[in-house]
């Protein structure tokens, strides 16, 4: 029983490790691509960050974001990369839930699920 659990633990950890690494890498590539587009389009302008204005919808909501990305804009693409980055720890938590389910560890399935729900609720 413990040996099987150890094997499952090791598998799960490997999946999580890869997930994190590829997630961060993918996010970085997208952010870099968006960054290049952004700098090509706006590199010569002056930055305006002294006053907090809040980000427009195309930087925050997936729908308008995709529209703007397909329209060739850089910052929404960066924003999309940021969403991928944010999804990485969330996906990691999901993996843990699956792992605990497989181990029939109900206590931690519930605990991890609560944490996940709290996180998702704020989006």
């Amino acid at each position: 029983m413990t040996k099987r659990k150890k094997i499952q633990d090791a598998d799960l950890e490997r999946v999580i490790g890869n997930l994190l690494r590829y997630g961060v890498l993918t996010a970085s590539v997208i952010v870099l691509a968006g960054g290049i587009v952004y700098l090509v389009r706006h590199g010569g302008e002056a930055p305006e960050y002294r006053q907090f204005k809040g980000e427009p919808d195309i930087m925050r909501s997936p729908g308008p974001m995709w529209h703007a990305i397909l329209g060739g804009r850089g910052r929404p693409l960066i924003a999309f990369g940021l969403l991928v980055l944010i999804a990485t720890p969330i996906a990691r938590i999901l993996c843990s839930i699956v792992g605990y389910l497989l181990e029939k560890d109900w206590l931690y399935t519930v605990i991890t699920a609560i944490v996940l729900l709290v996180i998702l609720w704020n989006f």
Partner: protein
Amino acid sequence: MTILGFTIILFVAAVVAGLLGSLTGLGGGVVIIPLLTLVFKVDIHYAIGTSLISVIATSSGAAAAYVREGITNIRLGMFLELATTAGAIAGAWLATYLPTSVIAILFGVVLIISAGLSFAKRADPVTTGTPGELSVKLRLNSTMPTAQGPKPYFVKNILGGFFMMNIAGVISGLLGIGSGALKVIAMDNVMRIPFKVSTTTSNFMIGVTAAASVGIYLNRGYIDPGLSMPVMLGVLGGAFVGSKLLSTAKTESLKILFALVILLLAAEMIYNGVNHHI
């Protein structure tokens, strides 16, 4: 100054922050916020949002390396995350209502405490005796791999640790930093687990906690792509280089240097906050 120039400078600064952060364990976010607010006069809300992104990036990047070694106590991390995420959400909400000068002062104070904590004496882990009932019920006690094979350890003062994690969460949500120093102290000195376990578990938790407040930050429009892009890429690059240098670097002297820099930045933040320049 053009956006291009600004972006390049930010990127270089972020690389340095990531490098120092990974070598000293003091975190890159603490440098990003003062840099943005003091030097570039960026509104602190944007700065906090940017810092939070860098925290998620470095946490996930580093965790990818640690997870496989089997040192991180994921159950403990998850259990404590119940406290941290609740705190993070409270902190993020606070951030939207507190005046920015107050946030700046709080940031400076927390910075000073964090820098001091990073030099705190490590407590000896508890490996003998009987485990507490709560730690057994919650299955928090575990083993850590050593050269001599797996070494068991026990987790003490769970409620005390839980409470401290709650505070760490509030600070993280309010200021957009990782609060790694506070988390490590909570696990190391209060819960008496081995240092390596507390640092890796803390790193795991930092990413989860950051994910909790980031939703609120996104909805409030604190996260700006133009700022996040160079900072995220720079911090990741710096942390990557730092991890390669770790074995050869003189971390003690770096830590002292970094702590001095942080103290200076903290003083500036407090000064500017008090004078309402932020």
